[in-house]
């Protein structure tokens, strides 16, 4: 309804403040008496902390305190938790070592904090930190996942012998073995999914303030889910009970998953603010971001796929080693299990699947969810396997996929997921048409004549978003419910405030969520404001990750809107002396259908608040809330096809075309969806070509700055050719599937499939740097 309703390309309301420098980020917030924290971090990947001498630092100007890991443990601040319990195949619970917010005894990765200096300024804190003497006794370290599981490898945690967190399985091993026994062809592939550093534009930050009179804490922090942060800080870290802790996530400059988690720095800031009796601010720098923001991916996988004589997939076997780093981050355990192995069926009919995932500790930065979280790893594996199979079976890769597509819905895969709807042929067709797939051989020949190696790569991804329902995830070990809440407040003058438990850190909720209101009430979005990110304002929320805000968060708003509209219609009917059933809402008015009788929304709102003439027994006011728990995951899916050229002289890849045909269900704001897809594709391409968080054998990070860690830039990526094929999600009333992660999930396989097609060699690991591609071309 209207130019600002669902489906309209409305310009983002929030961008005015962002592009004019008026955003309010944690570091912009200043408090009277504020102090600054600087963490003292381990330069060693593995060491005993033998002693910390802060006597010289304490004498330096402006130093308020030097606090150590021993003190935070003594004060009974809880160890960091992992919120998803995974059970190994032998029935034992996952094995975890303790993770104190600052290390009292042992450091297990470079960058782990051992102490913090609190001072009058950031620079004074840093100066004093250099005067703190930490006596380390170095221990042998291990960074590589396969080295860590070898016998004799350095051991990280006594609780986890062999550095093994869990050995988890899913699927039917017997049925899968039987399928392989009868297979006409078996395709095998070894794949490494490279470790990535998320690198949100805004580094993490925390500003904590303790009010001794009220025994109340306020924490401003860079969080994707402030209510979850409050819950965890209260329930597990003993900071304060929930009603004595307010968590505010103001403008947040990107997260990509890395700001889901509650990190040591926020805990220390809270604890320290009480210790020193003054507000404490910490703003991380880029080096700290590289060292301490949870990394993503880092899998080593062997997979085999069985085919019958008609090239139909009959089975899939997967064994994955997942590198968790030195500690189990908040949702890390779920990423290579329920967010990865449950998507191993891809878009295909696979009768039997068996996957084993071994989670491993190493002396590296902890690894957790990063844009896509498990699903990129699954999609990359399956799509590399399909490409490898097409080459081995000598069939067209698009046709091999098509002949194995799931076409009947709902479809129960052998790995938990029940796909509700989709049309995989439609997105494949759209992408093939957009890139002129049929014309590729001629283009390849033409490129060859010019000395270029041209390749095309297909990737048909599927993902599961809006993780749900709560009951289901609870049964799989999740420590939280995954619903969302919302509240609609119609003010007495008819303007509308939407309070949401979703959190926007770049997604554009302040625009898209208003569009739903505009759609339903026919009011301009300028009359609607979105309130989020403050536990004192919003009743509760699970936050934003997993492409859940539209499918889950917006549906909660819809449910609250429906309740509000129902009451408003009663008021309107009463005022217009009409039947409630005859009231329709159009252009901001409540009309008696088929007549010219109408009352404008502000008058309905005013009537609700003056309460002079309400229907008998009706409460005053016009404010409703709702909690929405979905019935299933949503399943965005699509096809990406990449056409590129490789320069045989340098191994450098240049894009010719990149098409994306996505099925996200209903789109609220296609412009914002395109922006989400662009960003996701760039991250997927970044993983495929550029990004790699590398450690040397001793656990020293090699890529802890942008001088070494290659982030994709605008001129590294092509202009994207986007389109949509739509099947509405039956699981939520708006038919939304979610769009935030698709690009990052589907892009990397398309790129690597295209490069390997171009160079005529199938084995190529990410990132496909020019050096690596050149060496692969020229390898014997």
């Amino acid at each position, binding site marked *: 309804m209207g130019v600002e309703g669902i489906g309209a390309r409305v310009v983002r309301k929030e961008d005015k403040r962002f592009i004019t420098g008026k955003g309010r980020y944690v570091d912009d917030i200043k408090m009277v008496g504020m102090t600054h924290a600087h963490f003292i971090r381990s330069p060693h990947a593995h060491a005993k902390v033998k002693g910390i001498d802060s006597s010289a630092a304490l004498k330096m100007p402006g130093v308020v305190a030097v606090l150590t890991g021993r003190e935070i443990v003594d004060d009974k601040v809880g160890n960091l938790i992992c919120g998803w319990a995974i059970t190994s195949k032998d029935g034992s619970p996952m094995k975890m070592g303790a993770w104190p917010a600052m290390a009292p005894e042992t450091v297990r990765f470079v960058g782990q904090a051992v102490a913090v200096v609190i001072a009058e300024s950031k620079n004074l804190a840093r100066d004093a930190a250099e005067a703190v003497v930490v006596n380390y006794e170095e221990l042998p370290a291990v960074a590589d996942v396969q080295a860590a599981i070898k016998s004799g490898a350095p051991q990280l945690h006594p609780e986890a012998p062999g550095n093994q967190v869990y050995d988890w399985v899913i699927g039917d091993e017997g049925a899968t073995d039987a399928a392989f026994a009868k297979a006409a062809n078996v395709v095998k592939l070894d794949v490494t999914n490279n470790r990535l550093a998320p690198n949100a534009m805004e580094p993490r930050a925390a500003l904590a303030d303790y009010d001794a009179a009220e025994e109340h804490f306020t924490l401003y922090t860079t969080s994707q889910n402030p209510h979850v942060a409050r819950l965890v800080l209260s329930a597990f870290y003993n900071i304060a009970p929930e009603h004595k802790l307010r968590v505010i996530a103001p403008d947040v400059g990107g997260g990509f998953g890395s700001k889901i988690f509650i990190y040591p720095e926020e805990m220390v800031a809270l604890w320290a603010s009480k210790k020193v009796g003054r507000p404490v601010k910490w703003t991380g720098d880029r080096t700290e971001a590289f060292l301490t923001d949870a990394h993503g991916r880092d899998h080593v996988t062997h997979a085999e796929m069985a085919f019958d004589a008609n090239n139909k997939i009959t089975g899939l076997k997967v064994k994955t080693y997942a590198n968790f780093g030195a500690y189990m981050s908040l949702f890390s355990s779920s990423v290579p299990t329920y967010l990865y192995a449950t998507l191993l069926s891809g878009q295909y009919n696979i009768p039997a699947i068996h996957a084993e995932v071994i989670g491993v500790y190493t002396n590296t930065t902890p690894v957790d969810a990063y844009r896509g979280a498990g699903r990129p790893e699954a999609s990359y594996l399956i799509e590399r396997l399909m490409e490898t199979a097409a080459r081995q079976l000598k069939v067209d890769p698009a046709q091999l996929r098509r002949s194995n597509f799931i076409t009947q819905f709902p479809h129960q895969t052998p790995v938990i997921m029940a796909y509700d709807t989709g049309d995989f042929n439609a997105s494949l067709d759209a992408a093939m048409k957009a890139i002129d797939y049929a014309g590729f051989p001629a283009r390849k020949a033409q490129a060859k004549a010019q000395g270029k190696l041209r390749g095309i790569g297909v990737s048909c991804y599927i993902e599961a978003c809006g993780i749900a329902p709560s009951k289901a995830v609870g049964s799989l070990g999740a420590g939280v419910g995954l619903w969302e809440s919302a509240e609609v407040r119609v003010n007495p003058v008819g303007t509308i405030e939407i309070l949401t438990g979703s959190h926007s850190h770049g997604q554009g909720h302040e625009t898209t969520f208003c569009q739903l209101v505009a759609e339903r009430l026919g009011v301009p979005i300028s009359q609607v404001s979105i309130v989020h990110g403050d536990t004192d304002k919003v009743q509760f929320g699970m936050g934003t990750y997993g492409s859940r805000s539209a499918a889950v968060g917006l549906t909660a708003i819809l449910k609250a809107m429906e309740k509000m509209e129902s009451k408003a219609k009663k008021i309107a009917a009463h005022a217009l002396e009409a039947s409630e059933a005859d009231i329709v809402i159009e252009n901001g008015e409540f009309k008696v259908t088929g007549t010219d009788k109408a009352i404008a929304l502000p008058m309905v709102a005013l009537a609700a608040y003056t309460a002079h003439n309400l229907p008998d027994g009706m409460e005053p006011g016009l404010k409703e809330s709702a909690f929405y728990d979905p019935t299933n995951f949503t399943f965005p899916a699509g096809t990406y096809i990449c056409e590129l050229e490789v320069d045989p*002289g340098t191994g450098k890849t240049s894009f010719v075309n990149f098409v994306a045909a996505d099925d996200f269900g209903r789109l609220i704001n296609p412009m914002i969806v395109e922006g989400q897809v662009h960003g996701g594709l760039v991250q997927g391409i970044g993983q495929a070509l550029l990004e*790699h968080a590398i450690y040397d054998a001793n656990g020293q990070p*090699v890529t802890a700055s942008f001088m070494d*860690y*290659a*982030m994709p830039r605008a001129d590294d990526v092509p202009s994207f050719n986007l389109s949509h094929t739509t099947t509405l999600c039956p699981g939520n009333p708006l038919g939304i599937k979610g769009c935030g992660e698709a690009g990052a999930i589907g892009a990397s396989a398309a790129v690597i499939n295209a490069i390997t097609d171009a160079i005529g060699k199938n084995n190529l690991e990410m990132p496909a*740097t020019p050096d690596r591609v050149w060496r692969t071309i020229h390898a014997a």
Partner: protein
Amino acid sequence: MYQTKYHRASSVDEAVSLFGKSSEAKFLAGGQTLLPVMKQRLASPSDVIDLGKIKELQGVELSGDTLTIKAGTIYYDIMTNADVKKAIPAIAHLTSVLGDPAVRYRGTIGGSIANNDPAADFPAALLALGATVKTNKRSIAAEDFFQGLFSTALEDGEIITAVSFPVPAKAGYEKMRHPASRFALTGVFVAQTKSGEVRVAATGASQSGVMRVPAIEAALKANWSPSAIDSVTISANGLLADIHGTAEYRANLIKVMAQRAVAAAG
């Protein structure tokens, strides 16, 4: 950043005098290396003497067969200068692929060569073109100026005032960009002087910094064409190796970039 004293010099003489009065001063040109290093607390000069506002260090002059670029000229101004484009278009091209727009608006030719980063672009141009580095004290031939990684012939407190390039008959520069830093993973500058001499310099490749490539020079002397380099073998010995490129890869790049630079030079 540690505390430091900032000075803005208005002349070369003033800058030299300020330098003499401080214990551990650094000259600040475009600040593209010095400032990040200071921010990381890896450098702690007592004083920073900013050369950016010194008028005599700005500008480009073409006089006969000599192109002179004043040391404080920023890359963007070099890239867009009509005399540079006319006399040595390869320098305009080099500048256009140097860093990114933010770097090109701040970085200067003098700052680049004084720092002599082994992967910087300009040292290759100076060496291949047989340029002369002018300082407040003397003139130094490019060969003598670059002395290995981050090391030059500059004495303490000596300020580069300009670089003079003899205008070549032909010149070209091609570079494989470092994927993260955008420095040269390997860049090769080829030049044929008006007297027929061929000079080739590679940056980003060697463990000892910018270097001449005699084997390619000999091949091009005999036959100025990309195919002349086909049979040249470049040894990987002594070449840099890191996560972005093996020594063998860099050896290959020297050859490939040289061929493309010759093609670009015409």
